[in-house]
């Protein structure tokens, strides 16, 4: 068998060539799929990209949290080097806020908002993809510091002078500053995109008082992004120049105000908390009515309390700085404003409870997560009101009590909300139902693990467990609480298993979901699951807040005046037709957002100390910008969004 005649060599070569050609042909369609995802402008695909990148960073940052818990399991452990510990808590916070939390909420905005307002895409589809590229490149750039062994180590809050060149001589904080500047550009672009989308692309009849709550919160959050990110951008710019070009913005020896950075950071950082949590409130306000089979109680009040939270959120930043000695007047004003925020937040909670009251409750997985959100957020909210009072805060600041508080808000609020939304909209996005049984395992395990991890931190914190310190003396007597927290954190990892199994099994052979598996009231459920590329075969006309909960309005009913706001000819399309009656032209894929983002990434890399690289990056950015500007958005014919 092995002794082939030499004359067969050419045949063998032919065979190899044929196999190579076959492989090439097999790869071509796959390459086309990859190229399609790299150039897509479809908001539903971009949502999936945002979700995958956000989830990846969530898992990475979660692992960093696990390492922190391992180090703190007992007093005076030396599992992690103190420097590495500082780097890990910095990366954990920075990644969770900017590269997990933000992309995940924007994933939901992307998928849900156009569908809820009856639009076919966002206002600027290419800008949408540009924002995603920058979010990913920002995260990758931040993590490029890991193989270089110089992760940022000044905390996600990056307080000066600790982060000045003098006290942070490594490159770590430069990675932090540059990564956040890069991602920030994309975030602001996203804010512009969603404001214009929600203001301008609403279907006929979709007035503000008929807008679904999630979309309302997306609008509020987009405005928050536009107003909160610029001060942070300026702060980062100052820090960049102080560290690399010798300016003196944060140099007290040159006469600078030692608190300037803290003000600039928190005037962004506190609204950022609402940027993360208001979308979760929006998700709860969608899920709870659907599974109570009852419209949201006090809809206008819930809307206005969301707006009020956002507005007040700009006037409370200095409650992060009670301990720096601003004086009694400033402390009192910020304490009062902070306590005031409890009012609209409480209103929302009462409205969710009142929505459930007397409703036909169905305890599906999304509903459990939403109820979990309400109850866990109450705990985080209550501890928040406690340190709104400066004397109390002076006892609690820099202890694990604060760590407990903001994890109850950000996990109990944001992450529970994101999971509620995942189980709720997954059937819409994929056309398949996630297993309810596995979903409930996921929920109950997470609820238990979350509370076992973070509830003891209230006690250890009040007893003096310090934050941001790599260990603690055994005399504090905190080993017990810390060990429980660490065990809980381990369980938290286990709690992800049912989710991953569920996603895997469902994507392979899940139960098909119809257009409206939950019997939900809003427009996204009127179209197919998954929706067609153009979302809506016919542009819906909206006459009420919960359009799918009303039967077709029959002409005789309209004559009898049974429907209070049925307009002239007021027939409401309940479910979309399968096929569009007229051809729909959608915007074409584009490479330019990627080209421009790569240019900006290269320019950012140059920010580490190479002017030539920055100039090359700027040139590529400019090429991308011009290519984009001169490329028509619709290349397959005249179109309009």
């Amino acid at each position: 068998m092995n002794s082939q005649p030499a004359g067969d060599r050419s045949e063998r070569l032919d065979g190899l060539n044929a196999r190579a050609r076959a492989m090439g042909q097999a790869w071509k369609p796959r390459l086309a799929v990859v190229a399609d995802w790299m150039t897509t402008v479809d908001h539903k695909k971009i949502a999936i990209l945002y979700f995958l990148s956000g989830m990846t960073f969530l898992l990475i940052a979660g692992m960093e949290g696990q390492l922190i818990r391992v180090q703190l399991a007992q007093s005076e452990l030396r599992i992690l080097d103190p420097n590495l510990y500082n780097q890990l808590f910095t990366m954990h916070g920075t990644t969770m806020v900017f590269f997990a939390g933000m992309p995940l909420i924007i994933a939901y905005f992307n998928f849900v908002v156009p569908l809820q307002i009856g639009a076919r895409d966002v206002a600027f589809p290419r800008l949408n993809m540009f924002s995603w590229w920058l979010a990913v490149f920002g995260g990758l750039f931040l993590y490029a510091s890991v193989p270089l062994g110089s992760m940022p180590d000044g905390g996600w809050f990056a307080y000066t002078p600790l982060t000045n060149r003098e006290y942070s001589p490594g490159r770590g904080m430069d990675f932090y500053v540059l990564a956040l500047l890069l991602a920030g550009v994309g975030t602001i672009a996203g804010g512009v995109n969603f404001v214009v989308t929600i203001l301008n692309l609403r279907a006929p009849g979709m007035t503000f008082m008929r807008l679904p709550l999630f979309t309302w919160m997306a609008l509020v959050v987009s405005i928050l992004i536009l107003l909160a990110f610029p001060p942070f951008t300026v702060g980062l710019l100052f820090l960049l120049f102080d560290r690399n070009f010798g300016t003196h913005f944060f140099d007290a020896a040159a006469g600078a105000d030692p608190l300037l950075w803290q003000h600039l950071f928190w005037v962004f950082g506190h609204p950022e908390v609402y940027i993360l949590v208001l979308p979760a409130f929006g998700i709860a306000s969608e899920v709870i009515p659907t599974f109570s089979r009852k419209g949201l109680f006090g809809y206008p009040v819930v809307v206005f309390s969301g707006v009020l939270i956002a507005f007040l959120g700009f006037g409370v930043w200095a409650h992060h700085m009670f301990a720096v000695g601003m004086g009694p007047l400033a402390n009192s004003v910020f304490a009062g404003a902070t306590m005031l925020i409890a009012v609209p937040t409480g209103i929302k909670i009462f409205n969710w409870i009142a929505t459930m009251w007397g409703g036909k409750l169905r305890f599906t997985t999304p509903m459990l997560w939403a109820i979990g959100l309400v109850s866990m957020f109450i705990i985080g909210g209550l501890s928040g009101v406690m340190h709104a009072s400066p004397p109390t805060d002076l006892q609690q600041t820099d202890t694990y009590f604060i760590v407990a508080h903001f994890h109850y808000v950000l996990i109990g609020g944001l992450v529970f909300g994101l999971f509620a939304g995942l189980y709720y909209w997954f059937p819409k996005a994929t056309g398949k139902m996630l297993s309810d049984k596995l979903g409930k395992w996921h929920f109950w395990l997470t609820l238990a693990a979350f509370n076992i991890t973070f509830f003891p931190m209230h006690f250890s914190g009040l007893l003096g467990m310090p934050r941001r310190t790599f260990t603690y003396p055994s005399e504090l007597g905190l080993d017990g609480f810390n060990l429980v927290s660490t065990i809980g954190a381990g369980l938290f990892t286990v709690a992800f298993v049912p989710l991953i199994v569920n996603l895997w099994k469902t994507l392979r052979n899940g139960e098909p979901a119809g257009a409206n598996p939950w019997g939900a009231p809003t427009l996204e459920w009127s179209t197919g699951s998954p929706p067609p590329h153009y979302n809506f075969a016919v542009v819906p006309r909206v006459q009420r807040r919960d359009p799918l909960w009303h039967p077709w309005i029959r002409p005789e009913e309209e004559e009898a005046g049974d429907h209070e706001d049925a307009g002239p000819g007021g027939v409401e399309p309940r479910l979309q037709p399968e096929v569009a009656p007229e051809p729909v032209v959608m915007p074409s894929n584009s490479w330019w957002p990627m080209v421009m983002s790569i240019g900006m990434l290269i320019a950012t890399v140059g920010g580490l100390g190479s002017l030539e690289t920055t100039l090359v990056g700027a040139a590529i950015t400019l090429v991308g910008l011009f290519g984009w500007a001169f490329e028509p958005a619709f290349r397959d014919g005249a179109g309009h969004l």
Partner: protein
Amino acid sequence: MSELAPVTGIRNRKLAMWTFIGSECMLFATLISTYMVYRGRNLIGPYPHELLNVPFITVTTFVLLMSSLCMVLALAAMQQGNRRQARFRLFLTAALGLVFLVGQFYEFNHFHHEGLGLSRNLFSSTFYILTGTHGAHVLGGVIWLSTLFLRLGSGPIDAERIETVEIAGLYWHFVDAVWIILFTLIYLLA
């Protein structure tokens, strides 16, 4: 696909520019606040009153304001469909913007010569970053307006193009308005 009118009555691109300008207000507000908070806190010279040349900057401010006037006239010419006038006025707008930038370059260069490097003191830090950020915005505007000028050599003057010029104008007027605030706070109050 049937064309749906924008719900607000303002088309997407223009609404996006207004939204972006809102965000830019916060950017400049932060920069200006920093400058104002740090005013007079310089520990070593040179100090602002020793360097700032108010008559010279008054001239460049006038130049920038005239470029805003040209911008208005360019848009008017676009609306009348007068290609030659529109191109000339767009060119003039960009050229005046460039003159302003040359003035800024000269000013920076002169300050540097007088011993005010970027890293000299608190005044140099805040002054260069604030006016430099504004200058970068002017530079972006000059590139944009030059592109519009070059592209207007051919093709129809339709509603789309008129709107493009209008949106560039919104940006340009915003950048000018910011300069009026900077001129007042930095130069006149020094």
